[in-house]
């Protein structure tokens, strides 16, 4: 394995995002798989930023509204995401509380923050730590879907426990907003093009 020292763009080649074939930048469709070719994801920064803002807004109702409604002999109780974590801590299930806390609170917040930082670093043409930032992007892209745990838990409990009058679970409105957060951040990660961080090496060189 040897680096050629040049990028695909330097040789006027576009890298197909579906099948990895290199084609001339004059072509519009990949000759191998038929996908649309583009040198870089179109409007990558604007799209990522717009989606990140959407996700941040959705994150508010996702935490304020109940994700699950519990009906028991004493009436009904509603629980938010954080409420669920607190209950788990109280009944002593620290590891499970940690899983939910990490998946539903730490992961989405870390992912949104990391993506905001990446967009900012590209727009400010930050030179340092390109390798680390690429790594950060790969991690952010990977962890996103794990936030769905809480929504799946709601689906499972609603399906499993339906003892009318005794104990029954129903989904709460935050399940919608929270799945929205997960979906939108996943699309945001797909819209971000990490190559933009590296393109600036060439641009800076030409500028100086």
């Amino acid at each position, binding site marked *: 394995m040897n680096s050629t020292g040049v990028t695909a763009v*330097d040789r006027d080649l576009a890298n197909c*995002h579906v099948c990895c074939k290199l084609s001339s930048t004059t072509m519009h469709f990949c000759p191998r798989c038929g996908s649309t070719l583009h040198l870089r994801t179109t409007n990558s920064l604007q799209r990522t930023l717009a989606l990140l803002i959407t996700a941040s807004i959705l994150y508010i109702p996702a935490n304020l509204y109940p994700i699950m409604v519990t009906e028991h002999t004493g009436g009904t109780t509603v629980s938010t995401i954080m409420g669920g974590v607190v209950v788990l801590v109280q009944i002593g299930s620290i590891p499970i509380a940690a899983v939910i806390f990490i998946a539903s609170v730490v992961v989405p917040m870390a992912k949104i923050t990391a993506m905001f930082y990446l967009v900012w670093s590209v727009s400010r043409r930050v030179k340092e730590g390109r390798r680390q930032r690429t790594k950060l992007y790969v991690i952010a892209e990977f962890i996103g879907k794990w936030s769905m745990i809480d929504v799946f838990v709601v689906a499972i409990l609603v399906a499993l426990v339906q003892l009318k009058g005794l104990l029954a679970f129903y989904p709460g409105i935050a399940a919608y907003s929270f799945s929205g957060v997960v979906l939108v951040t996943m699309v945001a990660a797909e819209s971000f093009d990490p190559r933009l961080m590296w393109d600036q090496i060439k641009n800076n060189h030409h500028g100086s």
Partner: protein
Amino acid sequence: MSELIACHGCDLLVDISDLEDNCRANCPRCGHYLTRFQHDAMNRVLAYTIAAIILLALACSFPFLSFSAGGIESVMTLPGAPGSLILYGMPTLGALVAAFIIIIPVMVILLMVLVSAPLLLGLRAPWLRIAARGLFTLQTWSMVEVFIIAVIVSLVKIASLATVVLGISFWAYAAFSICFTLALATLDRYQCWEMIEALDTAK
């Protein structure tokens, strides 16, 4: 002869012509994964895929979890989880969950058969390219491994309220998720498309 691949992380052109069997290549500049070569990759993919199909069929036909409290018993099946959301006023969310844990994984698995079988047999199947495109687009959206963790979390959450037993389906689905993940990890995007192209240009 050189074989060039452009890094998806930083666009660097890397010559991978000397990549040996069972070795993976990462970008020397940004560290991003490039490709991995295994001479028998398609064999493995098809084997994992067939195992996954059998396991998923099992997972859909038996109780997933059963729950009993005060003499009342209820069971949940795998399609029942998204089904309940549809039943209790959240059809969109139900459809989404069904897509993530059943529909997309099933489609990915079927597309894997449609791609790996012709490549193994050297058949120039007309659907090869379209199936491979669908496969690589859909694979990001499957959440089988996330669902497994969610089942374990649910179990602990209600363990204090009642007796919960894991059904045959749970174990089948857990095994399915392992085979499914292995199949996805073995199927390398770059190598797969190189094989498709080689098949089409061969006489």
